[in-house]
C-alpha cells in the first residue's frame, strides 16, 4: 500500500451553503489509501452534500477538496479529467443510462476514455459484470433489473476503469437484508482483491459496522468524530449514541425563534 503520509482524499475547512442555509460548517476530512471509510449520519446531517463536494459536483464556498493530491475546484479541465478517470462512483439509484444496455453502461467509461478495440472492451466489461455476479446479464436494459441488480451493475460501471478510489452512496438503501449483506461482502472483496480505497455514505448501522475500517460521523454539518468501529461504538457523545440506539433526539424549542418562524411573512 502507498505511504500513509499522503491521504487520497484531503478536505480542509469545507463550507457548503444552499441559499442562506449552511450545510457544512468547515469540515476537515481525510481518507488514507487502502481503507474503507464510512460516512455516517442521519438525514440532513450533510453527508450527501459532503459526497457531492468530494465528487466535484459542487464547488465549495470556502475550503478545499483535494482528491489524489489535486485541488478539484482549481484544477484545469485536463487535471480534473485525469482525476475522474481514477475514481468510480456508484450512485444511490444506480444512475445507469436507461438508453443503454447493462453491458454498454459498463463499457461506457472504457469506450470514452480508452482506445481499446471493441472486442477487448466487451471482454473487460463482461469481466466487471462477473465481479459483481451479473455475468450474462449484459444484454438486459436497466429497466429490466431488480433494485439489487441495478446497484451491482452501477458498481460494475464504477470499477470499469479500475479506479483507485471508489465512492458508494447508500449501498443498502431500498434493498432487502440479504441483498444488502451481499453488497457489503462485495465491497470488502473489492478492497482486498483490487486494493481500492472506498468511501461509503450510509445511514445503515449494521452495514457500516461490518465494512468500515474507520467511521466518520456527521451531524448537522459538523464532524462529531472519526474513529475505528470500536471507538465509535463506545463513544460517549450523546448524539452518536442517539444514532446508534435509534433514539429520537430531544429538540429544544427556542420560544423567540419559534414565534418568529410562525409570524414571519417572507423568507
Amino acid at each position, binding site marked *: 500500500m502507498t505511504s500513509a503520509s499522503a491521504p487520497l482524499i484531503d478536505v480542509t475547512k469545507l463550507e457548503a451553503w444552499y441559499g442562506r442555509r449552511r450545510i457544512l460548517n468547515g469540515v476537515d476530512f481525510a481518507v488514507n489509501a487502502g481503507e474503507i471509510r464510512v460516512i455516517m449520519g442521519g438525514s440532513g446531517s450533510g453527508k450527501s452534500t459532503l459526497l*457531492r463536494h468530494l*465528487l*466535484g*459536483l459542487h464547488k465549495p464556498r470556502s475550503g478545499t477538496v483535494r482528491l489524489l493530491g489535486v485541488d478539484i475546484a482549481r484544477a484545469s*479541465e*485536463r487535471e*480534473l*479529467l485525469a482525476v*475522474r*478517470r481514477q*475514481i468510480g*462512483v456508484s*450512485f*444511490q*439509484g444506480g*444512475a*445507469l*443510462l*436507461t*438508453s443503454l444496455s447493462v453491458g454498454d453502461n459498463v463499457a*461506457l*467509461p472504457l469506450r*470514452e*476514455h480508452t482506445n481499446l478495440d471493441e472486442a477487448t472492451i466487451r471482454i473487460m466489461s463482461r469481466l466487471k459484470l462477473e465481479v459483481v455476479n451479473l455475468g450474462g446479464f449484459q444484454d438486459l436494459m436497466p429497466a429490466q433489473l431488480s433494485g439489487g441488480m441495478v446497484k451491482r451493475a452501477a458498481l460494475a*460501471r464504477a470499477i470499469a476503469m479500475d479506479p483507485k478510489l471508489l*465512492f458508494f452512496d447508500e449501498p443498502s438503501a431500498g434493498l432487502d437484508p440479504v441483498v444488502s449483506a451481499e453488497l457489503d461482502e462485495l465491497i470488502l472483496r473489492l478492497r482486498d482483491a483490487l486494493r481500492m480505497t472506498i468511501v461509503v455514505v450510509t445511514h445503515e448501522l449494521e452495514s457500516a459496522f461490518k465494512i468500515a475500517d474507520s467511521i466518520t460521523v456527521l451531524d448537522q454539518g459538523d464532524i462529531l468524530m472519526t474513529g475505528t468501529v470500536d471507538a465509535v461504538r463506545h463513544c460517549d457523545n450523546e448524539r452518536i449514541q442517539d444514532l446508534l440506539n435509534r433514539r429520537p433526539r430531544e429538540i429544544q424549542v427556542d420560544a423567540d425563534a419559534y414565534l418568529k418562524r410562525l409570524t414571519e*411573512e417572507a423568507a
Partner: protein
Amino acid sequence: MNTLTRPLESLGRATVHAFAGVGYAAALLGESLYFAVFGWRIGQPLRLRAVLEQMRQIGVDALAIVTLLALTIGVMLGIQFIAALSEFGAQSQVVVAVAKSVTREFGALITAILVAGRSGSALAARIGSMSVSQEVDALATMGIEPVRYLAAPALIAMLVMLPVLTILADAVAILGAALYSSPALNVTPAAYISQTLSLLSAGDVWQGIAKSAVFAVLITLIGVSTGFSVAGGAEGVGRATTRAVVLSICWIIVVDMIFSFFLNR
C-alpha cells in the same frame, strides 16, 4: 408596503430569471461548439456516432410528417392565393406568391415548429429525466462532460437536419401548390414548377435556410437548457417538456418576424 412592492419584486425576480436563462443558453451554445471543435484535444471528443444517431432521430424520423404537412400547407396556400388573387383578376400571380411565401416563410417556419414539437420536447424530456435520476451527475463523475455527450451532438445534428428538412418542405409545398393550382390556372404542373423555378432567386431560398439554422440553435438550446435545469422529479420533467415546446415556438415566431423585417428592407 407589500401590496406595492410585491409585484415589483416578482417582476424583478422574473427579469433576473429570464436573463439568467438566456445567459445559461448562451454558455451552453459556447460550450457545445467548443467541444465540437476542440473537444478531441482535451479528451472530450464529439462522437460521430452520437451525431448520426441524433440526425436520424431529428431528421430522418421526421421525413414523413414534414412531407405530409408541407404538402398540406402548399395546397392550402394554393387555395387561398387563388381565391384572394382572383378577386383582382390576378390569378397568374399565384405562382410567384406561393413560391416566395413558401421559400421565405412557410417552409422554414412549419418545419421548425414541427421539429420543436418532436425533438425539442424529446431533448428536454430525455435530459430532464437523466438529471432527475442522477445520470447527468454520473456522466460528470465518469469524466464525460454532460454538455459534450448530450448537448453538442444534438446541436450539430439539428444544425444539419433542420435546413435539410426545410429545403424538402419548400419543394414539397410548391409541389402541393402546383398540383392544386395548375388546373385552375390552365397549365400543367410541370409548367407551373418550371415557372416557379424561373421566378425564384437564390436569395429567397437562402433566406429560409438561414432562418432554419437560427431556429435549429433556438430549439436545441431551449430543449437542452430546460432539460438540464429540471428539478422536482417526474412532474418537473413533464413541466420542462411543455415549457421547452412553448418557449421554442414563441421564440421561433418572434425571431422569424425580426428576421423577415431585416431581410426584406
